[in-house]
């Protein structure tokens, strides 16, 4: 696997307190007619460079709302959110789009690839919105696909790829603009257990290379592959702790039977 240069590996010395993500007392309300839903009730957290955080919690715990705010898809009702020391809540929609494009890589549960579009073109998509030249975009897409082990499937359509392969394409797409952080929302939710571990292997590898990863999941065994776990309940953080005895995905895979049919 080739190594993708990450912002995390460049010039971060001497900035220990410079968190990639700093959330301070964030609240989020949704007004649904008469009733007001209080989705986040004062969340404060800091995520440093090179961390691998699993965000856990039942549905309705506020973890998805938190994820959307971190991903700049949504704005907090009150509180501060700083992404690489930039106050996000004051930005326009257009500026938020630019941040999503350059600083954040999304991986979704349902892969969310464009159908009838090759893996290569799917991965290139973020470069189109980043004013990157076509040649450079193609080169980066190729590198990113090789990084996730799909260098030989670049011209396949999503329908010709397995679920695990589709998720790898999605990861490559998230990496192509060299973001500060990778946000994965239930990335293994649609995958069988072996493929889930394979995806976690990719994440661990990327994290070892310096990429900051935030993973939202409700599966405890998937969260185990991260370095830190944050538990959400009723819109607040219940528990925030380092994960002990973290398994190495590539080791786990050796002991799992291969499902070949």
């Amino acid at each position, binding site marked *: 696997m080739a190594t993708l240069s990450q912002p995390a590996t460049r010039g971060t010395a001497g900035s220990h307190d410079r968190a990639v993500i700093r959330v301070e007392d964030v609240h989020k309300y949704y007004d649904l007619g008469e009733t007001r839903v209080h989705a986040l009730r004062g969340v404060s957290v800091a995520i440093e460079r090179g961390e691998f955080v699993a965000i856990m919690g039942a549905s309705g715990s506020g973890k998805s709302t938190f994820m959307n705010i971190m991903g700049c*898809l*949504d704005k907090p009702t009150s509180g501060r959110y700083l992404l690489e020391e930039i106050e996000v809540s004051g930005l326009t929609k257009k500026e938020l*789009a630019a941040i*999503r*494009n350059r600083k954040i890589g999304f991986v979704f549960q349902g892969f*969310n690839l464009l159908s*009838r579009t090759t893996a290569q073109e799917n991965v290139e*998509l*973020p470069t*189109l919105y980043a004013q990157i030249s076509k040649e450079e975009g193609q080169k980066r897409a190729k590198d990113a696909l090789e990084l996730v082990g799909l260098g030989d499937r670049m011209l396949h359509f999503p329908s010709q790829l397995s679920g695990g392969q589709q998720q790898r394409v999605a990861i490559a797409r998230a990496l192509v603009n060299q973001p500060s952080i990778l946000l994965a929302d239930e990335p293994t939710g649609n995958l069988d257990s072996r493929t889930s571990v394979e995806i976690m292997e990719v994440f661990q590898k990327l994290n070892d290379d310096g990429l900051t990863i935030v993973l939202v999941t409700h599966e405890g065994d998937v969260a185990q592959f991260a370095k830190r776990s944050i538990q959400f309940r009723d819109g607040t953080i219940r528990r925030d702790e380092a994960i002990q005895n973290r398994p190495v995905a590539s080791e786990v895979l050796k002991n799992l039977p291969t499902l070949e049919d």
Partner: protein
Amino acid sequence: MDVLAIIRIAMRALARNKLRSSLTMLGIIIGVGAVIAMVSVGQGAQQQAQQQIAAMGSNMLFVGSGTVTRGGMRMGWGATKTLIYDDMVAIQRECPAVSAAAPGSQSSAQVVFENDNWATQLSGTEPQYFSIRTWLFQEGASFSQDDVETAANVAVIGETVRKNLFGATDPIGETVRINNLPFKVVGVLAAKGTSAAMGNDQDDIIIVPITTLQKKITGQNWLRWIVVSAVSREASYTAQQQITALLRDRHRIRSGQDDDFMVRNLADMADLADQQAQLFTVLLASIASISLLVGGIGIMNIMLVSVTERTREIGIRMAIGATEVDVQQQFLIEAVVLSLVGGAIGIAFGLAASYVITQTLQWPVLVSPAAILAAVVFSMAVGIFFGFYPARKAARLDPIEALRYE
């Protein structure tokens, strides 16, 4: 994001749904095709009308005997007997804007040649009539001024008469009988076709010296009309004024009284025919435009369906960094590409239709580059207009909602 990349994305999106894209384009194809074909037909008619009037001689003026009221009954044009040969001589002599004039009288006649006979219009005039009307001969020549002096039994026939009476026989030198009098055919006029201004067959005519007609057939000594040639097209209005003043004087019409004659200016008639042809073009084009409008609504319909169907795609694009403007441009360009490609095919279709109309209906057709340019601009405008709302709808989607859309 640069426009080329957006166009590429739009083309790819359209190519993914080829059947739907082509059906959507069909509306625009038919619309633009119809507009081009109809405008071509209209402009062809306009050009033909202008040519015909030019062929009649655009300097020409027509003086007709006027109307009269007898016992409260208005008799219509040609009822007065006051327009006489001397008026024609006076017009020639006293109006400086007039270069030539020819008298005319007419009747209808049954013309017989051997076993065939044909009812036609019989006119009597003098030889300069043919030059004033710029009417050429396909065979033979006009009768002479001598024939007029002697009231000779000679005749010039129009193409329609020749076709109906003679068929393959050469008519020159043959004798036809008009109202049982024998006439020698001395000339056959070149075909002029149907008059656009008056709508009658100008070739269905037989022309004899005016003296012959007046003395031997009608027994009338007044004129039905005088054709006049002005010195130039611009002078035809002056000539009209001069003739009117002269004839009012000669006919002793006091001021306040109506003319007992009428003067028609062919330049007026040319304008009138032009206006009619233009109206015809506008009418045809507006009917055709309706189909273009329907085509545009079709585009809007499909674009709205497409936006709903691709809500998730829009969500993905926004999540990975597309701005509202990017999304709006993408859908707008899809609509414009649909309408422009449809417009281009429609132009080909319209040209083909124009060709078929010329070939099968023998209608004159004039394809103007302006109409093609207008079609391109118009179809693009249709794309922008009808694509705007769906594109805006797409751009306004909330990315979180869009990503959750099933």
